[in-house]
């Protein structure tokens, strides 16, 4: 008795230590990034009844909302882990007296905990597994002796599980049924599983747009933006794997009398805890975390955080470069610090419109929102809605742009959908009040849209964003963001002459001296042009910049090839000169 109690205490102590580690792990993961990636306004309950597993989808969306608050998010995940632990405890209660009971239960939690490090694993799928396990556990509490009754009981449970948790939940139920049958040694009970496996097929007449593949694979058929890591399949099959391991280890320990059972159990728990640490921490992909932090900060218009995390980033793709450039503008140093980054995409790192997807459209919409270009912000939010139809940022943009356009009815429609999330209710109430009291022009964003509305209509060319913004700037000559991005685009396209033409506009925008990248560009222009002293609209180039250009030119002259040249002038890799000669997509090969 004393030994049994001691083993229990050790087991629960191991569980509590697991929970402490879980809190630490979740803080390292930063689970708010999962919300950032997957955020969506939950469906109403009636809408969720349309497809199997959508109820778990609503739970997943609500769970994601919890993740925005650090404390609540961590507590929410901890609660899920506790529920899973006790569900497994109930399912495997027959092994309670075994030495390996607690170690194995704790080991089964490891793949489940690892799931939370995967930001792009749909939360709905995690919920499908959890609710499937919960319903399967409830199912396991009652076990009819009569096979026909048990079959009927299992079939009804299976229907409920399939509707609530989809085929993922059904898979968990089937495993639990197998476990029950094996543990009870009434193998005829396996026949009760067959009708359960047919439930997805029986669903087909109720949904004519489903094929057998959808019916069986439903929640596993995800969008191209998401991912299903291998660890999910391991987590999904935990109950059966646990059964195998329990059976094997019990066989081993039963053959050899174990004198020091507490020591064995305690050691096993420690090994599992060590396994927890060494398995979970490496599954945090730091690069991905960093990227998501950058995007999350970008959507909060927190330029400083974007730049801070961008400095840690080893590889910058086009969308990252786009957000870094946006952040540089927010930090008022776009034309100073533009070439502190490789800018290997040229002007395509400023504008993303030649490679459109819904997720890219979301970023593009953000850009035009900042610019004050209402119709473009609205247009790209509409394109983003194609896949991200209930994305809060998309809906917010649509609300505000339609208010600016004067379509309050449309704004109210999207506001109504957005208010389905408790995170946005206050914002929605505020906007509603603004509409009702006719004070929408008090809002800065709406005022900006109205002020920047192009005076003359034209067609916005998606294939030539520079031209589009040029025309927009022509209508809004006081729009600083348009000006700076046009200048940046010219620099990136090596169109230094076009920058020269606009030098006097820098004064209009309050520049006492030319931005660094523009100074560097002017030196290239002077070096290449036949003019001895071209007009720089009253600006002069700082002596330091001139000296550095001379040094750059001296180092570069006489180099045999590009590689040697890059090595020689590597100290100037943050300059426009380095970009033009080496990293630009227009640089000669």
């Amino acid at each position: 008795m004393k030994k049994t109690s001691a083993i229990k205490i050790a087991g629960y102590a191991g569980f509590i230590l697991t929970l402490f580690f879980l809190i630490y792990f979740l803080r390292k993961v930063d689970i708010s990034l999962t919300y950032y990636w997957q955020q969506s306004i939950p469906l109403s309950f009636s809408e969720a009844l349309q497809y199997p597993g959508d109820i778990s989808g609503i739970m997943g969306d609500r769970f994601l909302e919890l993740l925005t608050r650090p404390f609540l998010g961590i507590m929410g995940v901890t609660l899920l882990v506790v529920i899973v632990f006790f569900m497994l405890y109930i399912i495997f209660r027959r092994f309670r007296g075994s030495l390996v009971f607690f170690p194995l239960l704790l080991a089964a939690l490891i793949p489940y905990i690892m799931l939370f490090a995967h930001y792009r694993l749909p939360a709905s799928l995690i919920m499908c597994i959890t609710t499937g396990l919960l319903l399967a556990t409830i199912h396991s509490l009652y076990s009819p002796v009569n096979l026909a009754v048990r079959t009927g009981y299992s079939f009804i449970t299976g229907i409920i599980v399939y509707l609530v948790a989809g085929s993922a939940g059904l898979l968990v139920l089937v495993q639990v049924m197998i476990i029950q049958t094996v543990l009870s040694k009434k193998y005829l009970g396996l026949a009760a599983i067959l009708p359960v496996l047919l439930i997805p097929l029986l669903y087909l007449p109720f949904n004519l747009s489903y094929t057998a593949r959808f019916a069986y694979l439903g929640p596993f058929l995800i969008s191209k933006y998401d991912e299903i890591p291998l660890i999910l399949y391991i987590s999904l099959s935990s109950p059966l794997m646990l059964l195998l391991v329990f059976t094997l280890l019990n066989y081993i320990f039963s053959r050899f009398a174990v004198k020091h059972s507490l020591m064995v159990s305690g050691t096993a728990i420690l090994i599992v805890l060590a396994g927890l640490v060494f398995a979970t921490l490496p599954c945090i992909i730091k690069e991905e975390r960093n990227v998501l932090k950058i995007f999350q900060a970008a959507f909060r218009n927190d330029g400083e955080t974007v730049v801070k995390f961008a400095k840690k980033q080893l590889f910058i793709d086009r969308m990252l470069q786009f957000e870094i450039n946006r952040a540089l503008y927010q930090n008022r140093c776009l034309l100073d610090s533009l070439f502190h980054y490789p800018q290997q995409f040229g002007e395509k790192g400023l504008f993303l419109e030649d490679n459109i997807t819904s997720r890219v459209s979301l970023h593009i919409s953000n850009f035009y929102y900042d610019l004050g270009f209402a119709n473009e912000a609205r247009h790209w939010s509409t394109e983003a809605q194609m896949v991200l139809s209930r994305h809060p940022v998309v809906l917010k943009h649509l609300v505000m742009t339609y208010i600016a356009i004067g379509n309050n009815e449309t704004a109210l429609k999207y506001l109504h959908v957005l208010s389905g999330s408790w995170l946005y209710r206050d914002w929605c109430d505020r906007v509603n009040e603004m509409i009702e009291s006719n004070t929408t022009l008090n809002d800065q964003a709406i005022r900006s849209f109205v002020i920047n509305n192009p005076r003359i209509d034209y067609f916005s060319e998606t294939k030539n964003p520079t031209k589009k913004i040029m025309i927009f700037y022509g209508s809004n000559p006081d729009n600083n963001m348009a000006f700076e991005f046009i200048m940046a685009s010219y620099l990136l396209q090596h169109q230094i002459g076009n920058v020269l033409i606009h030098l006097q506009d820098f004064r209009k925008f309050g520049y006492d001296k030319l931005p660094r990248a523009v100074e560097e560009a002017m030196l290239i222009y002077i070096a290449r042009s036949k003019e001895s002293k071209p007009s720089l609209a009253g600006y002069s180039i700082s002596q330091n910049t001139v000296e550095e250009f001379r040094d750059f030119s001296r180092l570069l002259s006489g180099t045999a090839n590009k590689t040697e040249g890059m090595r020689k002038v590597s100290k100037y890799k943050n300059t426009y000169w380095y970009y033009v000669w080496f990293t630009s997509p227009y640089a000669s090969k």
Partner: protein
Amino acid sequence: MKMIKRKLPWKLFALFALPLVVSCNPSTGKVKQTDESLQIYPDYTSVAIPPNIAPMNFMVRNNGRAFIAEISNSQNRRIIIRDRKGIIQIPIHKWRKLLEEDKGGILTISVFRKTRGNQWERFAAVKNEIAKEKIDPYIAFRKIPASNILWNIMGIYQRCLENFKQYPIMVNTLTEKNCMNCHSFNAGDPEQMVFHMRAVHAGTFVMNRDNIQFVDTKSDHTRSAGVYPSWHPNGELIAFSANMINQGFHARMGKIDFVVDKYSDIVLYDVKANSITRPAALASEKLENLPSWSIDGTKLYYISADKIADSLSYELILYNLMSIGFDERTRKFGDSDTLINAKHFGKSISFPRESPTHAIISFIGLNYGYFSIYNNEADVYFYNTETKEITRPPVNSEFTESYPSWSTNGSWLMFVSKRDDGILSEVWFSHIDKNGNAGKPFVMPQRHPDFYEHYLYNYNRPEFITGKVRMNPRKVYAYVKKGAVPSVFNEAESLDISSGATILTGKTEDVFYHHN
């Protein structure tokens, strides 16, 4: 003694419970009428409704602590529904009886509300007319979100108007999320259907009763596959437009999108022979588009505009309403006739459709172009083919109306309207009396009255059908996955080409649509 003991508790219960029950419901004599007007959503007041329509569920938008709705007909049959929030969902069987026994009668909606002072008061009753003429039991439509360039999940569905059931005819989740559009039926016959697929599994699905084909109507002689279709009443021919469509996005607030054809012509597709003919009369330098056969099949209505230079404003593109005679036996066209000159009318014409019973062609009038769905000023108009008079029926709103069509008995006009939220198109119906006058329109009923408040999809190109289409996505896919059979181009019957979308190009365009 025992019996008394058993009965007494029930009597006591009744004694205490009865006053409670009575006090929860208003009694007619004690209810005063409020001056406040009843606000229900959707607006199902003062409309004529078909006797076979699904329950017109609504919600009460006035403030109140509880609501009772009493729906009654002229025969004094009543349905009473109680709800705290004013969400009135009418039981379908009771509703059907109510309407069926009182065709031509009056449907009265009386709403009572409980005020904060726990008093019941009554709103002034609203009356609707129960028409004698039924509406076609189904419509088919494409379900798409509001977008211009990208697409994701979409499908063609059929919705029963007598209840709320909706079934997919085809969904693109089976075909790698390709695009599908332009579904059309021959006079509402669910056994004669056509629709297109684009991008992956490109082709046209043609169902002509038991003859089902998946064909590729694109050829070396046309710049595009068939686009906007119209079945000839004989079921043997389909008129398609062949278009090169461009799209542009307005920069200035107030307008969204503009669609213009660089080229367009009309071709004839022979369903049995799987062949395409290019009639010279419909393949000129002009932009011929949106074919629509007359009910008797002796005429083809279409729209036509002069092509303008790229340097000129798109607002100069005005489409006339045209008519051209057709000999079914020889399959020859006569001379075309301008029914409405857009310059004289002051509007461009789009989506002509002849009524089956009235001498009326419904169409959309808009300021320019033909792609009316993005134009707020687009409205439904009627053209009387006997008097040549153009009227604007009282079915329009300040937002877009588009795609008018007629039920097979000519008594119901269906169109899409964006009046609810300005962005998403909903299906609206209006009763047309024997003189061709349109009644106040009403929106297609839904099971949940707040459906349109959170629905984020368009009802695109709704078409009446007289019964349920027997195809479902799995059956359609079985044909599609075999691949499209190329259509033959009937050069012998295609005469005197001048120019246009169907000139011999020597190469086929892979894409018939561009966006700027």
